[in-house]
């Protein structure tokens, strides 16, 4: 039996609350999402977290159980954030969509024609480590059109659907997770690790959990000593100090006398200049941090810094302090955006990416 998967990219509220009334939306959640968007310009799930984005981690999980028909549906408002995939995936398609339910219905119709009977659907901003095969077996035995998932807090944006039956369903109602008692749906409870990315604070928590080994997924790169992961092409000065657990991403540079400590992650193509201390922080891709600075409990991206202790974002105009490092990956993202911005029907096949080699 062939299985498919649909991975939805774009801020959850942008996609899933179109059909909701204002009263149903959590104000605090929306504010958090809006403020996170202002900070990052792209959805959180497209940003590298210890080497790989949540989109890529979701695709990897499907690939691990031999699901090769994977579609990534990207909300047209989030096209700038089309993720870079470092792994190679067989028949992965990435599609920009303006109307998610109709795009999903189309995808399920395609899957049915291709002989894919059932499909997983997941919003990539939620990371869960549930046993996908067990979930699939549960769905098959329940003989329902759709299986909803829950954890101890609320319903999760992860479903298994019957591709034929799902075409006739009200998909917007299905995706609107306030309607959990959908007719013809069964419910599956998840007890495993779950992380929802709604705020940069959640991203820090997930980074910390990955580095401390609290979840199954691990950092990219090679573990050079217990708790210290160094990715391909990273340069670390012999006079710098990396205190475990920590991650230094691809092509990143840590200069003399710098200190990286307490669950800090330096993502790809970053530079931490001489004497700077990075403590309990994430430095997002393509960020240069200047000399002799002290960055604590924060997330830095380009010239923006979100301090989690005070919950405040500052934009730094002085490039000597912090600035964006225009790397190769940025231009690739821009190029991809130009290709995809044409409309919902435009589809781009993803060629094989570069496999990780450390």
């Amino acid at each position, binding site marked *: 039996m062939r299985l498919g998967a649909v991975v939805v990219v774009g801020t959850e509220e942008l996609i899933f609350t179109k059909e909701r009334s204002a009263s149903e939306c959590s104000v605090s959640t929306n504010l958090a999402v809006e403020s996170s968007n202002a900070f990052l310009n792209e959805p959180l799930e497209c940003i590298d977290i210890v080497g790989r984005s949540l989109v890529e981690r979701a695709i990897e999980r499907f690939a691990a159980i031999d699901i090769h028909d994977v579609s990534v549906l990207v909300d047209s408002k989030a096209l700038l954030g089309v993720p870079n995939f470092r792994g190679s995936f067989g028949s992965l398609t990435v599609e920009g969509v303006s109307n998610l339910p109709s795009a999903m219905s189309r995808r399920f119709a395609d899957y049915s024609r291709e002989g894919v009977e059932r499909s997983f659907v997941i919003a990539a901003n939620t990371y869960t480590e549930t046993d996908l095969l067990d979930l699939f077996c549960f769905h098959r035995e329940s003989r329902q059109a759709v299986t909803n998932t829950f954890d101890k807090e609320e319903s999760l944006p992860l479903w298994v659907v019957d591709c034929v039956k799902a075409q006739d369903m009200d998909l917007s109602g299905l995706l609107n997770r306030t309607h959990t008692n959908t007719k013809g749906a069964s419910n599956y409870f998840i007890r495993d690790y779950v992380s929802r990315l709604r705020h940069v604070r959640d991203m820090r928590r997930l980074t910390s959990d990955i580095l401390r080994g609290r979840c199954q997924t691990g950092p990219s790169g090679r573990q050079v000593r217990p708790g210290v992961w160094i990715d391909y092409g990273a340069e670390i000065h012999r006079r710098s100090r990396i205190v475990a657990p920590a991650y230094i991403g691809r092509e990143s540079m840590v200069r003399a006398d710098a200190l990286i400590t307490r669950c800090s992650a330096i993502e790809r193509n970053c530079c931490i200049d001489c004497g700077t201390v990075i403590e309990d922080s994430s430095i997002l891709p393509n960020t240069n941090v200047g000399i002799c600075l*002290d960055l604590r409990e924060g997330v830095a991206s380009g010239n923006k810094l979100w*301090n989690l202790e005070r919950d405040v*974002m500052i934009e730094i105009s002085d490039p000597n302090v912090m600035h964006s490092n225009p790397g190769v990956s940025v231009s690739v993202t821009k190029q991809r955006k130009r290709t995809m911005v044409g409309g919902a029907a435009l589809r781009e096949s993803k060629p094989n990416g570069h496999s990780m080699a450390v």
Partner: protein
Amino acid sequence: MYTPGPVIVMELPEKLTHLEVRSFLDEMQPLLEIDRPCVVLDCSQVQSMDSAGVEMLLHCLQEAMKRDGDMKLAAVPPASAVMLELMRVDRLFEVFDNSEQAVRSFQIFPSVTNAQSQPWYGAAHGLTDLKAAG
């Protein structure tokens, strides 16, 4: 004996970037050239501060200290506090919630909180025993 002079409270402008720093320093300079300047910078209006602003604060502190005075900060907004922390200068300044507290801090002498301890030859140490022994 140290006698504190008048405390000068200055309100910092909304923007403390390299464009505004020059004019503010021109205003500040005469105030820092008096003997033992006691300055409070009220940061409540500051909305953005860059490295030039931090440098200006350090310059003012240095000038005040040269003349045996001091400079304190009041009502520092979170964003400016993050900037000071990032550039490792937060520890150099005394920071208060508001300018009144900062002004008072120049005027109040620290009270002696620890009472003088008992002399070593007190009763607790067995002086009477010593006398008796003598």
